[in-house]
Each structure stands twice: as C-alpha cells, then as structure tokens.
C-alpha cells in the first residue's frame, strides 16, 4: 500500500504542476460554459414544459426523455465519432461544452418545471388580470418566486455537471481526468494521480453541494413558498428528478416523500404545509399563521372540471360505471 503512494511518485506528479493547473483550468472552463448552456436550455424548456401549446410541451418531453435515457458517454461519442462522418468535426473542448450542457439542460428543465409548478395558481391569475403578457408573467412574477424552489436542486445539478466533465477523458478532452489518466498511464504512478484528481474535483464540487444544502435550509424558513396546488406534484417530482443521482439531499427527500405528513425529522413537517383538500386553497391564516384579513377568509375554488365532460361520461358509461347507469335510473323515474 505504501508503495502505491511512495513519496517519489508524488514528487513526479508535483513536478508536472503547470500541466495539472492547465487541466484544472480546462475542467473549470468546460464546466462554466456547459453550465451556461444548461441553464439556458433548462429555463427555456422548463417554461416550455408548462406552456399551453401542446407542441412545445411535446418537444420538451422528447428532449428530456432522449437526453435522460441515453448515456452521456454515448451522446459524447455521437458528437465525437458520428458528426465527423457528416463533415462536421468539433474540437473535444466544444464537444464537452455542447454535450454536457445539453445533457444537464434536460435535468435542469425538470427542476425548473417543478419549481414553476410550486408557485400558487393565484399568482398566474393575478398577473393575467393585471395585464401582464405571458412572457412578463413568467419572467417578472412566476420565476422570481419559483427561484427559491429551483435553486437548491440547480446547485446539485451544477456539481453533477462538473463531475460529468470527466467523461471527456475518454475522448482525450485534455481536462483533469484526462491528465490523471495519461499521467498514470505514462508513469504507472496511479495512486497520486487519482488522489490529486479527486482532491481537485472535490474542491469544485463541495462548495456547490454545500450551497445546495444552504439554499435548501434557507428555503425552509419561507414556508409560504411551497403552498401552490402543485405541492403534491412537486413533491413527487423532487424524487422523480432523481435520475441524475444526488438530485435530492436527505432533507429534501424526506420532505418530498412525506409531502406534508408529520415526520420524525425536526422541522421537516413545517416545510410543506399540506393543501387541505383538492380544490381548496389554504386560508390566509393557515398559510401565514396570522389573523385572517378583511376579505372572506375561505376562498373556495371549484375543482377543475374535465373539458370534455360528455366524452368522459360516455367513457364511464361504457366502462359500466356511474355515468351510464345513473342516466338510466333518471329516465325510469321520469316515466313514473
């Protein structure tokens, strides 16, 4: 064991410090540019996902499912090996930026979508009633409020993005992992090479994941944030977004899974006040823990009616459920 980490091997590694620094800079640069792409794609497609145009929603679905269900390495290889066949050769640096940016854009759009879903429905209606255009509504009213929900998982995604830049080592990307591999391969001093790489990756990712935890805690103090009617959907999403591993920290997981049920973890139960029953908003007093304002304290909203009621009734009738039968009874009663 000591032989693997012998001092002279460390010396050989540190003698290459300019290369280490360059590789580290490469990783940072690829990460930063990919992060920009991922954020843009994430917000654009996150908003598309809640659009009222079906085509945009479908487009988002296709994008997200494609990106999430095919290995990142395969996507990188497509840019690396298939695109040149079409006469389009991209430098491995840009392959990294594009592929990793697009990959995490998919995950981020899911985060943004569930963030938007967490905003109280009344906010959309209020903005509309005040004459905001859809774009203004999103950028000025909804997204700023959704931010508090969005930010923690976004920070986790950023850390994942940095980690995933390591796949570029397999296409000679010249970044940190590639340096570690080639140094280890040249000298067979595997131990120091990989430990040094681990330390450097940790140095970037750890602050990001700490930021996620910090933002999540801070979010917990703003309890009114998570009271939109999409609370339950959001709760489910927090787990659903997990395909990208570590998307949830334990705290968020507990919160998501409990979804308003009192839990063992101190303070968790206050995070997501349950929406009392379907179709009813929480009263003002319940939300903010203060006395009810002057207006009627219990605003009730009729549960959403299915658009095609007749069609639904017909389906139900065909299935032998209430719709068909009840109509029959009514007619019989009329004849009497």
């Amino acid at each position: 064991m000591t032989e693997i980490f012998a001092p002279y091997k460390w010396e050989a590694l540190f003698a290459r410090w300019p290369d280490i620094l360059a590789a580290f800079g490469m990783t940072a640069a690829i990460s930063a540019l990919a992060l920009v792409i991922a954020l843009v794609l994430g917000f654009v497609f996150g908003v598309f996902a809640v659009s009222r145009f079906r085509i945009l929603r479908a487009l988002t679905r296709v994008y997200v499912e494609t990106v999430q269900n095919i290995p990142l390495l395969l996507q990188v290889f497509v840019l690396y090996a298939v695109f040149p066949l079409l006469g389009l050769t991209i430098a491995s640096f840009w392959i990294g930026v594009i592929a990793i940016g697009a990959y995490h854009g998919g995950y981020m759009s899911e985060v943004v979508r569930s963030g938007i879903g967490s905003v109280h429905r009344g906010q959309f209606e209020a903005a509309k009633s005040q004459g905001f255009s859809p774009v203004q509504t999103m950028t000025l009213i909804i997204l700023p409020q959704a931010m508090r929900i969005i930010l923690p998982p976004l920070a986790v995604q950023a850390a994942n993005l940095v980690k995933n830049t390591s796949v570029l080592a397999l296409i000679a990307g010249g970044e940190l992992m590639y340096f570690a591999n080639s140094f280890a391969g040249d000298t067979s001093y595997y131990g120091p090479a990989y430990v040094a790489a681990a330390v450097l990756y940790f140095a970037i990712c750890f602050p990001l994941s700490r930021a996620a935890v910090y933002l999540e805690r801070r979010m917990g103090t703003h309890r009114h944030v998570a009271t939109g009617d999409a609370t339950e959907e959001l709760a489910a999403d927090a787990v659903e977004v997990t395909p990208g591993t570590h998307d949830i920290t334990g705290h968020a997981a507990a919160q998501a899974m409990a979804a308003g049920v009192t839990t063992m973890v101190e303070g968790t139960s206050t995070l997501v006040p349950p929406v009392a029953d379907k179709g009813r908003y929480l009263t003002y007093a319940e939300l903010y823990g203060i006395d009810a304002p002057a207006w009627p304290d219990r605003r009730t909203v009729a549960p959403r009616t299915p658009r095609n009621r007749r069609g639904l009734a017909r389906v139900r009738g065909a299935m032998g459920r209430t719709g068909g039968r009840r109509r029959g009874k009514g007619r019989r009663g009329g004849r009497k």
Partner: protein
Amino acid sequence: MSDIAALLTWTNIRFLLEGLGLTLIISALAIACSIVLGAVISIMRGSSSRLLRGFAIAYVELFKNTPLLLWIMFTFFVAQLPPLPAAVLAFTLFTAASVAEIVRGGLASVPAGQYEAARSQGFSAPQMYLYIILPQALRNMVPALLSQFVTTIKDTSYLWGAMALQELMGRGMILMNSYNSTVQIFAIFGLMALIYFVVCFTLSQIVRAYQRRLKGAR
C-alpha cells in the same frame, strides 16, 4: 442498404444483447450491494456516536463530490482488481452514497407515530425496523432506487473506455471495428442508443407509474 443488412444479422444483434446482459448484471449487482452499504451508512448517520456519524457524513460527501469515472479507475488501477469486481466495487461505493441519502429520506418519511407505536408494543430496535419501519419506508424508496438503477445502467457505459469490459457500449465499439462504413456506424450508434433508451425509458415509466400509485394511496 446491403451494408445495413450485413450488420443487422441475428449474430450481431445477439452480440449486442449479450452486452446488455452484462450491463444489467453489473448494474443489478451494484445496486443490490449499494442498498446494503447505503443502509448501513444511513444508520451510522443517525447513530448517537459522533465518530460513526462523522464517518458517514465524510463518506457521503466524498463520493457525492468526486466523479464516478475516478473511482472506476481507482478500483481498477490502484486497487488492481480484475475488471468485473473492480466495476461492481466502484459502482457500489459510488452509488451507496446516493442510496444512503435515499434511505435516510425513506426512514424519515415514516411518521413518528409508527416508531412510538412500535416501541410501545415492546418491539426491539431491530424488530421495529424489520417489521414496522422498513416495509413502509421501502414503499417510499422504491421510485428513487429505481431511478438510481437507471443512472447506474447509463453509467456502466464508462466501463468499456476505462477497463475494456464488454458491456453494451463496448460490444457496440467492437462491432464498429468490422462494420465501418458510414451507414453502418450510424446504425450501430442508433442501435445502441435505442437499446439504452428502451431499457431506461421503460424503467423510468415504471417509476412514474409507481409514483402516481403512491400518490393515489396517500
């Protein structure tokens, strides 16, 4: 067209599907092992001993903030294990950190009343977890664990580049040595993407359906 016909023979398809088999075996083994390790770590995380708690936190932070590829290299080159055990070990170590978080979330999702009720009925701690808490917690953990499985399946694609293990990705690359016209390379990439997509998409749809059912049950 004949290029494609030459490629899409039963032998080649089977060659790829065998690769998929290895992918699934490695992922399943890794997930099974990491559930055990993850459970142990999350129990340590909740223990009253400061040392154990510190170790668990350090473990999770270490693996959460370093790339998987690094650990694959580590088990293969530094620990000098043969490819298959190295792969399973690397994935287990790495995935256990996520699983530990999932288990912690799952345990916390069981209402406190259940713990109290179990204790009041005289269950010992292991009995309580085994008969009362875990069955309920597991129900909540299944979607997250399945998502983790999907992630692991996707990540096994590193193994060909790192240690020449012939999983699905590797098999595809091997095919590319003998079928290297443009159309054939397109087809091989398409085929690999399709296989990965079908497997992962099916699993994530199962996750979604299960989640809807959970929500209904609630």
